[in-house]
């Protein structure tokens, strides 16, 4: 499978519909401090099934919903979609027949998260399995968050061992 697109709507500072084309090779993301780059990373982590709000700098899962500014009201829903190309049919069952796989996660205030794959409602664990098979997932070594390198350098050997265990 190949990742091709990431779409955000109402996710943290990305209140308006945003689409990131994930092309082949190296995709660079630049911008001033505080403009939203790490939020993009967290959106991908979130749609892949991140369970802990702490791993996304929040205290509760609803913290990912656009909280409003002086000019724009807060929203009560956030959603992120990641699109994968499955032309090589390497995706796990029951998704292996689709040429394109669209995974969507949506959260509404007081209603929790809802997952959909190609429009069909699924459980969180189905999404976790889907990504576990492609070797990616919210805790995969493939998502290196800001400060992770410092964490590896600075933590006690016992915590570093835990990082290795989690990636195995």
């Amino acid at each position, binding site marked *: 499978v190949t990742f091709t697109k990431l779409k955000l709507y109402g996710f943290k500072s990305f209140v308006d519909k945003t689409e990131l084309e994930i092309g082949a090779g*190296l995709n*660079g993301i630049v*911008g001033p401090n505080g403009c*939203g780059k790490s939020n*993009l990373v967290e959106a991908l982590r979130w749609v892949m099934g991140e369970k802990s709000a702490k791993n996304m700098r929040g205290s509760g899962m609803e913290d990912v919903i656009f909280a409003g500014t002086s000019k*724009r009201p807060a929203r009560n829903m956030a959603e992120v979609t990641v699109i994968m190309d499955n032309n090589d049919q390497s995706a796990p069952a029951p998704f292996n027949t689709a040429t394109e796989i669209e995974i969507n996660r949506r959260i509404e205030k007081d209603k929790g998260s809802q997952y959909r794959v190609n429009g069909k409602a699924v459980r969180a664990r189905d999404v976790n399995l889907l990504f576990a098979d492609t070797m990616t997932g919210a805790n995969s070594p493939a998502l290196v968050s800001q400060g992770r390198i410092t964490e*590896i350098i600075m933590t006690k050997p016992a915590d570093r061992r835990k990082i290795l265990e989690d990636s195995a």
Partner: protein
Amino acid sequence: AKERLAIAFTRVDGHFQKLFATLFEGGRAYLEMLESDDPLEAGLEIYAQPPGKSLQKLSLLSGGEQTLTATALIFAMFMTNPSPICVLDEIDAPLDDANVDRVCSLMEKIVSETETRFIVITHHRMTMARMDRLYGVTMGERGVSQLVSVDMALQEEMALNESA
């Protein structure tokens, strides 16, 4: 599970040793799993010897050397469990140009061998110059993020302007 960890450890260490030598253009490093009664000592220790220097624990290396060594470990874990996507959020901040250049070369090598797609967040001018395409995130309206595509000519100029 203990056995799975031992297998993972051996594979990660194998990749780590090669990647360290690639990123440092020499020298050597290895991982060690320490059993100890002292909870502060037991766990995963990293030993590294940049070219021409003596073997040390990771904590005794310079800031940039520590970062480059940890980068080798991150890529080693990645290559043990490869994935179609790899996202790196500002891993190059403490690195000088020569080291940034080698990290980018390593990413290009991984791309050519595995078709992995990378998303690389950076403030570093040289990293920007090595990307296949650039996206800019701006907050023209306060508190609201916008994503824009940056074309290659502008990419050259941005790499000249953004002084990191």
